[in-house]
Structures are given as C-alpha cells and as structure tokens.
C-alpha cells in the first residue's frame, strides 16, 4: 500500500467551509500524512531538511490548496522554491522524487464553465496548472489531472459531503495504485470511471 502526503496550504483555513469538509474527511485516513503548511510555518520559515525527509517517506504527493488568482497561496510557492532543490529534486543526481505520483487538489469559486476559452477566465484549469505539471515532470514524477471542487460559494452542505467522500475514495484508489492510463482523456480526476462506478 502506498503512502500519501497531503501538503495542505490555506492562509485562512478556519474560514473555509469547503476545505474544512475535505480535510476533515481525509486527514485521519490510514496511510495519509496530513501536513498543514500554514500552521507549521506561519512565519514562512520552512525547515527544508524536514520537508525532504517527509517527501522521501511518501509515494503520492498531493498539493492541496485553494485556487487563488489562478495559482497556489504564497506559502506553497515558497515550499516549492525551497524544498525542491537542485541536485536533490532535479538536475544532476536530483532523483529523490523519481517515479512518485503527484497531483493538485484545488477548490475554486468559479464554475467549470468560466474556465475555458469562451469563459470569463479564458483558459482551462489544466492550462493554469501547467507550472505545477512541469514542476512535477522536471522532478520525474507522474502528474495526474487535478481533483477540483468548484463553485464552492454555491455548494450546499450535502454537496460538500459528496465531494469529501469522493476525495476520500480518490485517496483510497491512489494508495492501491492508480495508473496514468486510468486518467487518460480526463481533464479532472473527479470524472474518471473508477471514481464514478455507481
């Protein structure tokens, strides 16, 4: 069974219904390490060696964050900048993350419809996530399509529970080895058949 590291970054977690629902559902699952970056590093002073050690102990890396201004919150960028060091994560001998699996789990206010060439945001989520995708690629990781909970402002409590359950199911799948083939052709991992069997 593979081990999952959830790198969670939310500057105001206490005010986020959607993320509270998601996190509450998965943080105590077996084989999951829930790592709350804003709580751990409120002063942005990241302990790089501790983070590297944590990464090496896990097979699945999840960047879980709200989708702010088409990107991640600043502490997560700080984490990427500091932890994914040259000569460790990439570059010569930089093979520490080789063949691990990586994906973004995001929450957005906008709907799927606004994230397309005709929509008000002009580009798709997948396009906005290119920097993350290429970061994973450069580090030799398999990058999977994102798990996205969208239109969070409109979601009812029941909707949130459904999303949280799906997040949990996804993590269970990931632990049991979910391959890239399962995700072929899907923009969101939410939509793959294995998660929508019923």
């Amino acid at each position, binding site marked *: 069974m593979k081990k999952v590291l959830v790198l969670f970054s939310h500057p105001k977690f206490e005010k986020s219904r959607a993320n509270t629902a998601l996190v509450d559902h998965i943080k105590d699952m077996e084989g999951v390490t829930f790592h709350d970056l804003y709580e751990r590093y409120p002063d942005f002073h990241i302990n790089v060696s501790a983070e590297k050690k944590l990464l090496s102990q896990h097979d699945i890396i999840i960047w879980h964050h709200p989708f702010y201004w088409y990107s991640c919150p600043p502490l997560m960028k700080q984490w990427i900048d500091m932890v994914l060091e040259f000569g460790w994560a990439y570059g010569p001998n930089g093979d520490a993350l080789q063949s691990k699996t990586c994906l973004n789990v995001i929450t957005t*206010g906008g709907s799927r419809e606004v994230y397309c060439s005709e929509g008000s945001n002009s580009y798709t989520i997948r396009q906005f996530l290119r920097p993350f995708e290429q970061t994973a690629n450069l580090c030799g990781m398999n990058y999977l399509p994102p798990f996205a909970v969208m239109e969070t402002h409109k979601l009812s409590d029941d909707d949130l529970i459904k999303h949280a359950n799906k997040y949990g199911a996804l993590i269970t799948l990931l632990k049991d080895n979910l391959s890239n083939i399962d995700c072929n052709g899907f923009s969101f991992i939410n939509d793959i058949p294995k998660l929508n069997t019923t």
Partner: protein
Amino acid sequence: MSGSILFEAIVFLAGAIICVSIAKKLGLSSVIGYLFAGVLIGPYVLGFIGNEGEDILHFAEFGVVMMLFLIGLEIEPKNFWNMRKTIVGMGGIQVGGTMLLSYILFALLGFDWKVALVISMAVALSSTAIALQTIKEKGLMDTTFGTSSFSILLFQDIIVIFMLGFIPLLSSTDSNASAEKHSDHTNLLESLPIGFQTLAIIMSVVLIIVAGRYLIVPMLRKVAKTGVRELLIAAALLIVFGISFLMEYVGISPALGAFLGGVVLSNSEFKHELESTLEPFKNLLLGLFFMAVGASINFIVIANSPLTIGGLLIAIIILKAIVLFITGYIFKLKLDQNLLLTCSLAQIGEFAFVLLSFAFGLNILEQEQMDIMLVITALSMSLTPIIGIINERFILPRIGTKESVKRPMDHIAKSQKIILVGFGHFGSTIGRFLRSHGVEATILDHDSNRVDFLRKMGFEVYYGDATRLDLLESAGIADAKIIICATNKINVSKAISKIVKENYPHVEMMIRTKNRYDAYELLNLGHENIYRESLETSLTLAKDVLSKMGFRKYTLTRQVQNFIKYDEDSLRRLASEPKREEDYIFKAKKELEQQEKFLNQDFKRGIVEYDNHWDSEHIRKALNKFNEE
C-alpha cells in the same frame, strides 16, 4: 548670630548649593561638596553654625534611614535571601578582622582593654551614608563591588545592635548612672532580660513584614484613591518614621528596620511612587548629614594633638583597607573591584558617633579619648571621597580592567561603526546577532567582570560610565553610524541620548525602553527608534496561548503584526498629544485607566473581524447580496 532657624536653613542651603555645584563642576562626588560646605560653615571657619552641629547630625541621620528604605525597595525579598551568604561571610570577616587588628593596635598603644574594645567596635563599622551615596551616584550598585559593599554595610547594621547591647556589660558603673547621663539611649528593652530582648527584636521584625503586607499596602491604596498628592508624601514619610520609631523603641538600628520595610514593599505597586516621593527628602537629609559631619570636625582637638590624630587616622584607614582587601580577596573579587571596595569602606562610619558617645555615657571612655576618636571618625569620612578619587584617577587606570585596550583594526565593519551600550541580557543578544553577521559592535559596559570576559572573547570593549562624553569619544562616537542603548536604566539612555544629540547629531540612536511611558518621553525628545522590550515578547506569548486554544497560527502571526503596528501608531499619537496635567504620583492609576481604554478600543475595533482576506464566506455573502439585488 546663629539663633534663628531661618538663618540656619539659609546657611545650610546656600553652603550646599555653592559647594556642591563647585564639586560637581570639578567632576567630584557631591559628598565632598557637602563635607567641605560643612567645614566652611562650621564653628571653626566661618562660625555660622555653633555647637548645635551634633544635634543636626542626629536629625540628619534620618537621611541614612531613608536611603536604606529606598535601597530596600529595590531589593526583592528573594534577591535579599540570595545575598545572605555574602552578607554574613563578607560582613563577618570584615567586622571580625577589623575589630581584632584595631584592638591589638589600641592595646599596644597602652589603652585600657575596655577602651580598646569599644574603640575597635567603632572602627570596624563603615559609613553607609558615604559609601552607598557614592556608589549610587556612580550607578555601580549592580556591580560586584556595589553588592559586596552593600552586603558588608548591611551586616554592620545588624551587628551594631549586638554591640550596643554588649557595651553596657563593660561598664563598671551601675545602669542608673548611665541612664541619667544618656537618657536618649534608654529604651524599652534595657530593663528586660536578654531572652526577652531577642524575642522583642524578632517580634518587631515580624511585625514589619506583616504590617507591610496587610497594613501599609492597603493604607497606600486608600490614600491613592483620595487623589490628593501630598497625602501620599505624608504616608511615605509616616511609613519611614513609623518603622524607625518602632526599631528605636526595641533598640535596633532604625536603618536596618527601614531596609526591611523597603524589602517588604518592593513587590507592591507603590514601589515607584514611594521612591520618587522619598528621593528628594533623602538627598537633602543626606546632604545635611554630610554637612553636619563636616561641621563637627573639632579643629581645636586637632590643633592640640595633631600628631596623635594624624597618626591614628592613617593607621586606622590602612588597617581597615587591609582587612577589606583581604575580605575581597577571599571572596574572589577582581583586583579593580576589590580596590574600589577597599577605598569606599575604609572609613569609620556614623555609627561610631553613637557607640562612642554611648560608651562615654557609661564612663568607659574619657572625654579626651572620645573627642579624639570623634575627630578621627569625621576626618576619615571626609577623606573617603578623596581616597576614592586617587584610586580611580591614578591607581585603577594602571591595573585591572582598563578603560580601553588597543586592538588591531581587523574589520571592514570599522567603516560603519556601531556602538552598543550595555551588554546585559538584552544587549548581549543584540551583540551576538550582530556578530553572527560579521558586525563587531564596540561595546560599552560598566561591569568589569563582564568587560574582561568580552575582551577574552575578542570584542572591543570600553569600560566605564557611558554617560561620560570622553568615554563615548574614545569609543569612537565621532565616526559611529549607530549607537544602541541596550541598558535597562532609562536615565542612562536619556543622558546618552542628550549628549549624543548635542554633540554628534549625525549618529543614529536606537534605544531600548521598558514601557510605553519611557517611550513617550524619548519620542518627545525627538527619538524615532524606540524599542519597547515588553511588546513583542508578550505578544508572542499571547499568540502561542491562542494557538494552543485552536486559533490558526498564520492568522495569529498576521494579527500580531497588526497589533504591533496599531500599538506603535497609538504610541506615537499619544506621545504627540499636548501634555495634560502630568500627575506622576498617581501614575499607577493612570496606567490602569489607559490600559482599560486600550482594551475597549481593541474590543470596538475588533481587529480579527476586519481581516477578510481569503475569507470565502465573506465573498459568498457579497455574491448573494449582489445576486439578490
């Protein structure tokens, strides 16, 4: 000529003002000024003051009592308890050693053994007034030398009780005769057996401690509530008078009682009020005391036997100095601290006046013996400041911790010189952090042990009083970019800031302050870089409390930044407000009122609620509202 009280007051005050300001101009201790003023107005020079000098001396001894009360206020009970070994150890060796040597001296000179014993007791005691006043004036109370001197003096205050109890046993006459001759020394206990006396003494000490907690503090609270300033002055005086009366009644030195009273009150909220109220009284009374000592020097006695007196004076000072030096050596004082101790306590103190006249009253001493010893006492007290100057100007610069040591210029930081004043808990952290960045601050400190240690660690350190312009100049203030005042003494910081602003306005000042009130003052003096030592640490603690209660750390971190910003802004706003009637005496009450105001503002402002960043709920509500419209 000297009949009217007004005239006497004028003579004393004018003498003090003229002589002390001259002494200060010459860079001498104020004690010298007062002593010289006393000699000048005394019966043998200008003759303004006649033989009432001794009565005044008795009255002015109250200044010593007040001084010990004030010192007590600065020593918390716990610290006092920690000093017990030094007090008994150093004090015991000093008093024992001096008594032994001077007994031998006077016995060899052919004095009767009783006389020699009484004199040796008097000789063993030093002058609390002169020594402590000088130490406090130089701000050396928290150095090794300061605490050692204080410990010895305190032990003497205690031991004098036993001496006064012991002297009557030497008397061959019956006690009635002595009572007639010296009625002011009879007290409640003389007629009681020794056991009861001890019991009464212990009881009265307990009484002071209990009364301090349960009587004096509640009384002060009531007085403060009335809002009448002079009542607090009256209350402060009442406390000191009351304690002294009680102590004299049971036969303990009033100074010792006052000291205990001070220690008991050192934890109370009225500490600073009492200090600022009694300080001027103490200073004037001590001044009067020194003048009375000067006036009491009997030049006729000196003229009659100049050689005896001169010889004895020198012998006694040397003898006391030797014992003090050995005491300091046993207690591992560094050479320069030890020399300071030796020079500051090598006189016969004011207790000698009491002991000698007491023994004279009991017919142990003859008139001539007493006169000679009294003159020697007064002279030795007058010589102390002079010996101190010789030590500081000529001996100390040659040995021990030098004011500065030459050291090769090895750093680029030389071009951007930083001066750090004070290397205690606060300053040392600054120094370490600067050094970890390759920035070597030039350090000024007045604790020679610390200075030596720092020099060993390779720091450039100047030793001495940082409020002296010449020391600042030799430390290179002229080329400095920044001077950091990390001392916890706001008066030192203020003095430095004044000197630097006047003489080297281009040097930037960064100043540590204890609280917002000191910060107000410095802001009003035009200083911008004020660092309140309590602000960030207490907020960090509060932040961690809230974090443990479940608040998110990042939000708290941001709120701490907001709070600091808000508090700094309000500090600057309040400092710039025109001063309303400043009622320092009820500052404690004012502080509470202001705290309450701040808390109310915090509550109204609801800082946490204003912070809507990243708050999806906030966005949701706004969107819903927009859609409804």
